[in-house]
């Protein structure tokens, strides 16, 4: 399985990522999921979230999650980008693409990866209320 992992302070360039899609002839499903910073957290409006990571461990844990996904579904590739630093409400904090032969495994693997990320990958966020 091809895998690309980016953990970065830079904005997520969705257009460039979509332009970089690569699928072989046997693949028929590309599932995308975007995590967007909500404009409200715990009942109050917010301006942004600040993401912090234990970067080396985050990379290690993401790859362990990808390893598990690879054993469960016949995936051709996973590309995942997670923002760090301050991300304004309405901006994308997470971008993931899963490519598989059929939609069932692509959807299931995408859901699995995001759920596992929220369980084991050491990334935290802090809300900044609207001034």
């Amino acid at each position, binding site marked *: 399985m091809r895998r690309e992992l980016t953990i970065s302070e830079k904005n997520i360039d969705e257009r460039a990522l979509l332009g970089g899609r690569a699928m072989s002839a046997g693949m028929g499903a590309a599932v995308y999921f975007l*995590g967007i910073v909500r404009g409200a957290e715990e009942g109050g409006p917010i301006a942004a979230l600040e*993401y*912090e*990571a*234990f970067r*080396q*461990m*985050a*990379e*290690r*844990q993401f790859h362990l999650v990808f390893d598990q996904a690879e054993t469960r579904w016949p995936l051709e590739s996973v590309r995942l980008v*997670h923002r760090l630093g301050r991300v304004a409400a309405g901006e994308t*904090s*997470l971008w993931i693409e899963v490519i598989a032969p059929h939609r069932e495994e692509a959807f299931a693997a995408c859901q699995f990866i*995001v759920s596992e*990320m*929220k*369980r*084991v*990958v*050491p*990334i*935290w*966020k*802090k809300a900044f209320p609207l001034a």
Partner: protein
Amino acid sequence: MQVRIHFYSYFKDLAGSTEVTETVAPGARLEELLQKLFIRFPKLASMQRSALVAVGVDYQAGDYVLAEGDEVSLFPPVQGG
């Protein structure tokens, strides 16, 4: 034996530091180190049931036997995405 401990997220505030060192006996288990830390940093003690613990870049359970040079990280539940 000296062990370095790193704190992440709001655990840095609870400990008042990003990293500290602690002395443990050779062959000490991770849970023994944690008990020392919760006594040393009482504000962290209230989080001990939800705290996540890693050695290096892997999660470890309390029975992990610490070795010279291990770097321990202590942090709250993760919140990526």
